[in-house]
């Protein structure tokens, strides 16, 4: 069966061959979206308000609302601050190799819950 996933059309890096800008663009957006989901999932589970979060971050509520409205090229500092301020979470890192056929860690964890239990590939420390 055909998939339209862009990843299925990518090639593993090799030698000194230049990686296309569009490959980086696709992967960057995927990372941004996954970080966004990670933060929102933690935020939803925490039960705090955006106003509470803004207070913990020392920022205005408008600023936090704007931040949470859409994914973006968040810095690691921003993600770190958000996760800890939400519920004391700390980001840990994992690497998937979706171009390796046997690497299952790249697959998203399916969720059927209405309580936003989707777990993005980025990991949270316990």
């Amino acid at each position, binding site marked *: 069966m*055909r*998939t339209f996933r*862009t990843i299925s059309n990518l090639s593993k890096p090799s030698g000194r061959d230049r990686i296309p800008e569009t490959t980086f*663009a696709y992967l*960057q*957006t995927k990372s941004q979206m996954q970080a966004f989901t990670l933060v929102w999932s933690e935020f939803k589970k925490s039960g705090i308000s955006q106003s509470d979060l803004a207070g913990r971050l020392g920022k205005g509520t408008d600023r936090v609302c704007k931040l949470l409205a859409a994914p973006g090229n968040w810095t690691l500092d921003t993600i770190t601050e958000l996760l800890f301020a939400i519920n004391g979470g700390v980001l840990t890192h994992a690497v998937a190799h979706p171009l390796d056929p046997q690497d299952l860690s790249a697959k998203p964890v*399916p969720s059927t819950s209405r309580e936003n239990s989707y777990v993005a590939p980025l990991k949270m420390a316990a």
Partner: protein
Amino acid sequence: MSISDSVSSGKVFDFDPVSETPRKLYLSEEVASGLFAPPTQDLDGIRRARAQAVLEDFVDGGFVTVAEDPFDKDRKAIMARVSRIEWEIFDFRCLDPEPGIRVLGCFVAIDEFVALTWDYREEFDGSWPEQVERCRSSWSELFGSVLPHSGAQLDAYLSYNFESV
């Protein structure tokens, strides 16, 4: 004609038939062959590559912010209702790099979206009505008199990982 009939007849394409998440994305021929064509190595190609990632994230259950008022929305929302609301058209707003891309379509069931038309954002300036009509025509060609999925609240369209903004 139902969505399954349309997929069986090759008129729309299942984005990922083996996806394990509850969400489904279907592509019209226009979106499949245009937006998901191998990107060219220029700004337009970069825009399409990033838009591909946005739609793929939807299928993967990624968090979606949805603007429900077409005329008063957060400019950063990932999805938005398109006027006129009763036509049940939503657009994916692929914003980076600006001016981005818009992908218009409708829900066929909860968590199931069919992407019908797309274009670079600047092509919508001064021609939103024409772009919307193009989407509506695409729906009619594919599904005839069957109406898009509708509901009173956003949770009739998405069952998880969403927020109205």
